[in-house]
Structure formats: C-alpha cells, structure tokens
C-alpha cells in the first residue's frame, strides 16, 4: 500500500492518516464544493469512531449528514445544509429538530462569510472584513458577527472571525511521489482550508511521477501537508473532474435512506462500518459498484 517517497513519510494509507491526525474534539473541516468532496475520509472517521468534532463546511453534504447521524459532531459551522437539487439533509434536520442521536450546536454564517473566513485563516489574520449581514437575522443569532468602521472612510463593514481548523481534509486529483498535490476544476475554498489548518490530509485519485501542471495551476506543495493518501474514487458519490462524474443517482437515492433512522443506521452499518475502506465500500454498495467499474 505504501507508495512514493518512503523517507519523507508523507504518503500513507488513509486509515493511518486518520489515526494519526484526527482526534476526538478536533475542529475539523472537510471541504469540496460539490466537486472533490472527501467522502472516503469522512467514512474512515466514522469507522474509527471519532466524537465531539466541531465540523466546518460551507455546504454540509451527504458526508456531514452521515457523520452527524453517526454521532461524530458536537457542533456544525456552516452556510448551506441541504442535499443539492434533491431536498433536505434528513440526519442534519433530525439532529437540529429532534436532537437525534444527540443535539448539535449550530454556528450559521453565509457563504461569503465562510469563504472570507477561510481566506483570513490562510492569511494568518484573526478576522475578515466584508460587505454583508446588513439587516439580516443571521447577525442577531450569531454573536460572532461584528461590525467595524473603515479608518479612512468611516464606512461600516462586517467583520467575521477567521476559520482555523485543527485539521482540514480534502480530496484532489493527483499527487507526485514527493506529495505535491494538484487540484483542478471547481476549486471551492480547499486551498484556503488547507492553509488555514494546523494539520492536513489530502486523499488523491492517484500518485504520478510528474504532475505536468500548467504554471498557474492550483498546487499544494508537499511541505504544507501532513499526509497524502492515495484513494481511488475517494470522492464518490461526489466527483473528480477528469476521473469520474458525480453520482446524481446516489444523491437522489440518499433521500429515502436518510429519511428513516433505522434505514439510515442499517445502511451505515452495512456499507461503512461493515467495510474496511473505500475499495470494499465501493464493491459492496450496488450503486457504486455499477459506476466505478464502468
């Protein structure tokens, strides 16, 4: 399983990386805007039973629905929590509306806020300045939104706290043998989420000899990463541009599975807890098997 630069030790299996770098109680960001969502890493965190996590994500997707439903989350910092184009995240709603499996705290912000907050985190600033939140109830329900005045013009602007996770996990297309990572397509806030964090894990579709990237491509140098883990199809049912498409079919299938507590629990037991890793998960789950072998 070990590939690449052994001496450097940055390239390692995902289960080892989660064991070493994700702790109970961590502030954890799994980022990826529709594209490159690190599902395999989220599943491994569920398998290893991490608890009391403060989860950050602009768009809590199915992976956070699964983590919340499995009781990993103490708190959620987010801006839009739905199943895109399908409807609700039922486990998220069940936790918020009925406290199942337990209550979770919410820190709710807007996309612009969280995007700016990751930029501030990556820039080692304690806050970001933005135009926003004027007359919105969000500012009255979130005390961590402040307003400041421009020292030159006197204009009033919103100030929001930086996001600085203990650990950020993302998925990317590929890494070279030293662990330099290339992302392309929809980049979301992943680069900033990585640079804002104390520790980082990147799962990649493959390890290659040369990244052969255009000069202004989005590259994360190996020396800012804690671990690089080869996980083929590690974003499925999200997608990796150039590798496979989004499984819109699975996103739709998730709706009935997640609506019911028992259906959800038995699905998680069978396909996540009952498998040892991404490969086995993909082979066992019928929807995945059809798509990844295509």
């Amino acid at each position: 399983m070990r590939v690449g630069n052994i001496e450097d030790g940055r390239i390692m299996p995902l289960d080892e990386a989660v064991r070493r770098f994700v702790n109970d109680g961590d502030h954890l960001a799994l980022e990826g805007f529709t594209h490159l969502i690190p599902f395999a890493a989220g599943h491994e965190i569920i398998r290893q039973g991490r608890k009391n996590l403060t989860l950050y994500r602009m768009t809590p997707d199915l992976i956070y629905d699964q983590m919340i439903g499995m009781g990993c989350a103490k708190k959620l910092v987010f801006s839009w929590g739905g199943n895109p184009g399908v409807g609700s995240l039922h486990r998220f709603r069940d936790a918020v509306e009925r406290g199942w499996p337990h209550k979770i705290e919410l820190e709710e912000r807007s996309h612009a806020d969280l995007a700016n907050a990751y930029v501030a985190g990556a820039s080692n600033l304690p806050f970001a300045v933005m135009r926003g939140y004027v007359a919105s109830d969000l500012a009255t329900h979130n005390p961590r939104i402040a307003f400041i005045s421009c020292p030159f013009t006197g204009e009033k602007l919103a100030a929001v706290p930086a996001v600085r996770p203990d650990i950020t996990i993302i998925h990317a297309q590929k890494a070279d043998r030293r662990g330099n990572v290339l992302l392309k397509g929809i980049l979301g806030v992943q680069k900033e989420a990585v640079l804002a964090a104390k520790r980082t894990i990147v799962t990649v579709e493959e390890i290659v000899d040369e990244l052969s990237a255009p000069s202004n491509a989005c590259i994360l140098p190996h020396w800012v990463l804690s671990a690089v883990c080869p996980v083929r199809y590690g974003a499925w049912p999200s997608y990796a541009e150039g590798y496979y498409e989004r499984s819109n079919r699975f996103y739709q299938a998730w709706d009935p599975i997640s609506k019911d507590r028992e259906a959800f629990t038995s699905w998680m037991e069978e396909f996540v807890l009952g498998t040892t890793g991404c490969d086995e998960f993909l082979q066992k789950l019928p929807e995945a098997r059809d798509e990844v072998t295509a």
Partner: protein
Amino acid sequence: MFANDFTSSEMMAVAASRLLSDRAVCFVGIGLPSKAANLARLTHAPDVTLIYESGPIGAKPDTLPLSIGDGDLSLTADTVVPTHEIFRYWLQGGRIDVGFLGAAQIDRYANINTTVIGDYESPKVRLPGAGGAPEIAASAKEVLIVLKQSRAAFVEKLDFVTSVGHLDGGDARINAGLPGAGPTAVVTDIGILTPDPITRELQLSSLHSGRTLDEARDATEWDLKLADSIAETPPPTEREISALRDLERRTADRNR
C-alpha cells in the same frame, strides 16, 4: 407562435427567463433560477454570462446542474475561479447585474427566508440556510426571485430574514446602505409581482395566461396589492417551450 399546451411550472420558468436580458452578468442560484437563466441563454439571451457561486464564470451547461458545482458547469465555463473569489471580486466587487434567487418564504417587501420555519432555536422545519443569498440580495445591481406562489410561502411575516429585499419599504434599503437596488421582480406560477416605485411593496403587475386574480390573492397570506394595470403574461412561444423541454429531457437522460 405561442404554445397551446404548457404547465404552470413551465410558464413560471419561461416568464422568469424573459426578464434576463442578453449580455447581462447573472449570479445564478440553483434550482428554478438556474433553469430560467439557462432557458434565457438558450433562447433570447445567448450572450448572457452565468456565474455560479462554486466558481464557474460564463458557464454554458448542456443540461441543468443538480447541484451548484456540477462538472458540466466547470467544463463549459470561460474560467473557473475559487469560490472566495466569486464572492470577493465578482459579487462584492459590484460586477453582477442580476442576482437570480429562489426562496422558501417571502414577504410583501421581497425579503426572503431560507433558514427556518418556526423558532430559530427549536425550529419546526430546519431549511438549508443562507448559502450565497444574503450577499447576492445585498450586492447584485438588481435581484430577480422565482418561486411558486402559496400562502405558506407568501407570508405576512417571515420567521427569519435570511436575505433582505426592500426591508420595510420606502427608502429603507437605500438608508441601510445596501449596494444594489434589490428585487425588481418576483415571478411565480401565477403571475409577476413588482415593487411599487414609492412604497416598494410588491404588487401584482402581470397575470399568466389562464390564471386569475383570485388565485393570486388566495395564494398570498397578506392583502395582495394590484398594479394600476395588470398585464397578461404572454404564453410560452413554441420556441421557448421546446427549448425548455429539450433542456429538461437532456437533464433527465443524464440523471437516469
């Protein structure tokens, strides 16, 4: 040539698409706004620039994206920038002509709620939340809103103000210092509502072909005001309806 046969959902998408002018730069919300904006691009507005919050600028998807970051958006775009740049340089930067939004609830001043039904701390229904809407509603030069009309959606008082329209009307929006002009139209399956030029209260200014004033009033919790003259929205043309149905067929084929 007008189509003979169309649903109220189709009428809503077509009516909304017509409000988007060619060469406009449009920040597109997912769902109905994305359907209407792409229909505009495929009919009268080939040079419209569609921007999605995930990063694509100038997206020209062949099918309707299920999510805001589908691969078809990225692969057809003029360029794909990081999400933070979309919000910082393009939206906050003042470069968006039209913000195209949906909503769960709307009030008479076109303020919208996408956060909760019921109390925030113990909600009856937890909705997805703000997403990009608060800053789109604040900063786009103008805002178009599209949603089905019903008493549950067109409410007397919002449970939560997620994104602001004209606040409590009159000059309230200008006085609050919001950069953009706010909502200029709300398109529903029954008609089109536009703000009164002085009070900024929404009034029914167009009824879709075959719909009635009573239907509009019944689907509105507040006492719906009427414009001085109410137009009839022209029905979809053959071209519009076939472009819309082709788009939906391609989308269904892709998701099969």
